[in-house]
């Protein structure tokens, strides 16, 4: 899939390694997003309305090189966008991640950018979602804000 974004430099770590060294203008990372369990996510999974759960699941981990390439400021945030949606999360370095793979812990923030299709087997593809990542000054929404637009009508069956 071609990414054509006017006025932006696209950085795809698998396609053009040399671009990385030659350009300081990298602002958009084309990556593969995976979600998964973490200790922090698990330990707070029965306390999902807590600040601890927010802290444990509303981040995106990137490889050191991708993190640097995006020019993320200290404790900065990134906007992760897929064909299914977008979400702002805080950015973290993770030395275990290869170039071009980003990780968001299992939870509402990751699921904001996962697609509903199950490919006929009942299970959405939570790992391996094509994503674009860019640094952002936008704030990370808390869990209530994340679902605030899904208005409830109240009560009885429709």
């Amino acid at each position, binding site marked *: 899939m071609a990414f054509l974004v006017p006025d932006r430099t696209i950085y795809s770590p698998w396609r053009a390694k040399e671009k990385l060294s030659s350009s300081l203008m990298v602002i958009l990372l084309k990556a593969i997003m995976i979600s998964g369990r973490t200790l922090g996510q698990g*330990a707070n999974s029965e306390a999902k309305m807590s600040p601890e759960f927010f802290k444990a699941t509303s981040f995106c981990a990137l490889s050191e090189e991708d993190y640097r390439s995006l020019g993320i400021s200290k404790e900065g945030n990134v906007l992760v966008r897929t064909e299914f949606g977008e979400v702002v999360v805080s950015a973290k370095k993770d030395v275990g991640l*290869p170039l071009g793979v980003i990780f968001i812990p299992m939870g509402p923030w990751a699921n904001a950018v996962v697609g509903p299709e199950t490919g006929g087997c009942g299970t*959405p593809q939570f790992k391996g979602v094509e994503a674009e990542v860019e640094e952002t000054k936008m704030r990370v929404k808390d869990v209530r804000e994340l679902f605030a637009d899904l208005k409830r009508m109240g009560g009885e069956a429709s």
Partner: protein
Amino acid sequence: MAEDVLCPFCGCLCDDIKVEVENDQIVGVKRACKLGSSKIRGHERTKAPMVRKDEELVETSYEEAYDRAAKILKDAKRPLLYGWCSTVCETHKKGILLAEEVGGVIDSTATVCHGPSIIGIEEKGLAGSTLGQIKNRADLIVFWGANPAEAHPRHTLRYSSNSTGMFTPDGRKGRKVIVVDVRETRTAKNADKFLLIKPGTDYEVISALRMIVAGKGEIVPEKVAGVAKSDLEEAAEMMKAARFGAILFGLGMTHSRGRYKNVDNALSLVADLNGFTKFVVMAMRGHYNVAGFGQVCAWETGFPMSVDFSRGAPYFNPGETAACDLLAKREADAMMVVAADPVSNFPRATVEGMAEIPVIQIDPFPNPTTLLADVVIPSAVCGVEAEGTAYRMDGLSLRMKKVVDSPYPTDEAIIQNILDRVRRLGDDN
């Protein structure tokens, strides 16, 4: 002090936990990992039943909450009864009966974790064992798309890579560990051999391994999905050289491109390996009793999940009758969530499907599903405040204990109350 308590967190279902109780309050938890300890110690609870009035949830009585829930289910043409991973089998039985009674669809959280593993098993069968068999015999452990260091913290010590047993007195020293993953996890850092594969290429890598194991490696290209053939050959050699090998796979396999076919192929790899040595395979199940739902549902209905009772007889077809499909395709017209949190764990567009229909939540804790629920019924925490049966990831069942009293009714009692009311509504018709 309560001894040998079962941990109501992950599929390890550790049964050696010590819980200190004073004045019916839990004051200490020993031996549990961070995950289990956190759950047993407890979190903020939903205090009272609630129903939504004018867009707000307001507290109400259990009686009213049961009535509202029964009416929602009874009125629906395609109600979805979902969750069941963090409750006991006794609840599952009642839930299945309720689903039959309201002509609904019942599905478990397996649908967003190891559902694909079950469909893979339907293709190939499962060459497995209990965890103790691995502890006592395995000299090779392969973690494939699994990261027990984060998801099942005591697994390695109690059952797998670092455990000791009859033929494995040296523990980790006497074993080899292979990790296959798309990133270098904490588990991978402790491996003897780490295969870094590209996301969504599990199937190809397994096929290549099967070829090499069968002695047909010359056909395999020099690189498969980013992995050098020599690395695959080394891994295959380690597998064949093992006296007892175990492939323990996680969501890396089921959540990636290929999904159940990845599992299907891994099951074949294990069957192939048994032609050379002893090998078993196991899914690293997430919640402590998600495996139990599959067992109960299978013996009650013939099928392990995603069972549709619309027409009075069980019909099973994940992709059609699984929770995510019903919501994403806007088929379900009401939903009851028991002991799970789909709003957090389903893709956003699927959650939007929930937002359009009445939702009943039965759970001890407030969570994002509460935000969308129209009826909220707080329950006792199974394994801490209520007893019952749970099935470990290897299919072994154990009896969960009640450690302290609870002011809240059990899940089973709540479902029974709703069932009674549904039946009464049925009689009125």
